[in-house]
């Protein structure tokens, strides 16, 4: 019979693996985990939280730029996309980063519809990742509260 801790640990392991398998996270997220220790136990959560704030800000900038009907500054949108691509890359947000690649192409070719579509997708994607990582961090908390250790998951 599984203890609560063992069940939670298994859930955590499975969920983590699925996030990598489904392409939400890449090895840079693994790199971030290496930087977490007893002295900085919440490092990953802090960094991704800053990343999501960054997403919100940059998406807002892009939306405003695209809203200038007839006078869209695509280079401005492009520079925000570049920044978003950079920070998503730094935290291992693989799908967001992938969308930024497409988004950048739409900016370069000054495709308004393409940009609007990409903007919508990026918005959905970062929010989806945010919810999933929140679930993951909640699992971690539950494990710790139940007296267990957070397992190291080798992808």
């Amino acid at each position: 019979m599984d203890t609560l801790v063992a069940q939670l640990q298994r859930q955590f392991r499975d969920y983590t693996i699925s996030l990598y398998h489904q392409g939400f996270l890449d090895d840079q997220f693994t790199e971030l985990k290496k930087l977490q220790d007893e002295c900085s136990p919440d490092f990953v959560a802090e960094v991704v939280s800053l990343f999501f704030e960054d997403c919100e800000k940059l998406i807002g900038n892009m939306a405003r730029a695209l809203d200038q009907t007839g006078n869209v500054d695509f280079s401005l949108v492009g520079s925000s996309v570049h920044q978003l691509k950079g920070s998503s890359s730094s935290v291992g947000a693989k799908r967001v980063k992938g969308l930024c690649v497409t988004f950048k192409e739409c900016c370069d070719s000054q495709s308004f519809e393409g940009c609007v579509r990409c903007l919508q997708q990026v918005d959905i994607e970062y929010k989806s990742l945010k919810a999933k990582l929140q679930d993951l961090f909640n699992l971690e908390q539950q494990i710790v509260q139940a007296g267990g250790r957070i397992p190291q998951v080798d992808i």
Partner: protein
Amino acid sequence: YSSMARDGGVSCLRSSETMRVGIGGMESPPLDLDEVHVLAVDDSLVDRIVIERLLRITSCKVTAVDSGWRALEFLGLDNEKASAELDRLKVDLIITDYCMPGMTGYELLKKIKESSSFRQVPVVIMSSENVLTRIDRCLEEGAEDFLLKPVKLADVKRLRSYLTRDVKLSNANKRKLPEDSVPVNTSLPPPPSPFTISPVSSDSSPPLTISPESSDSSPPLSPLEISSSPLSSPIDDEDDDVLTSSPESSSAPEESPARRQKMRSPLD
């Protein structure tokens, strides 16, 4: 620390110890050889936090700023007069992003190399784009190394290992001591798998693949060109710096492609 870093200005971790008074110039070795002070420059808050952590975890003291201007300000290079004051900062390494609004990392590099006080300080450039002309330009201007973002722990450990050697030894020979030959990570790096070496994510791929969204029109290098240096070991990239730098001076611009392309340890 994250609230300190957010303000976009200078974030000094361990503020009581980040500044040192250097007396007599930059050539004299610091008193505590392990306390390497790094100035990190990046306009992205997320990247600043990550690079700070990477450096701190490898026992560096870090000052992180969000622009080239703030970096110059921190170094006391923002005014015209030559700095002959004694209150010179001890900075052992400057690591800067390339793409920044206002002043690029390249422009910052030039200003540092033009200054008498700090031209000896190794400068490392970071970029999310694997553009050879960019890399060449930076190396020619005197950059010590070029890191492809996202920066990993292995990259910073590599920097750290040759930096300490430079500081400890007064000559330019960057021979690596045996005990530092392979960094031991506490967690095992993931084995090569479809999930860690992704064909889709370009910037995080190993050195043999070139970013498809590279803005430069130069043709991608084949893997042969990258690892063509006879001095580079195909097995252990960690020894690249030793093998390629020993016959050359420390600031030789004609770095082998293998060295400048070596962004990852093969353990990734």
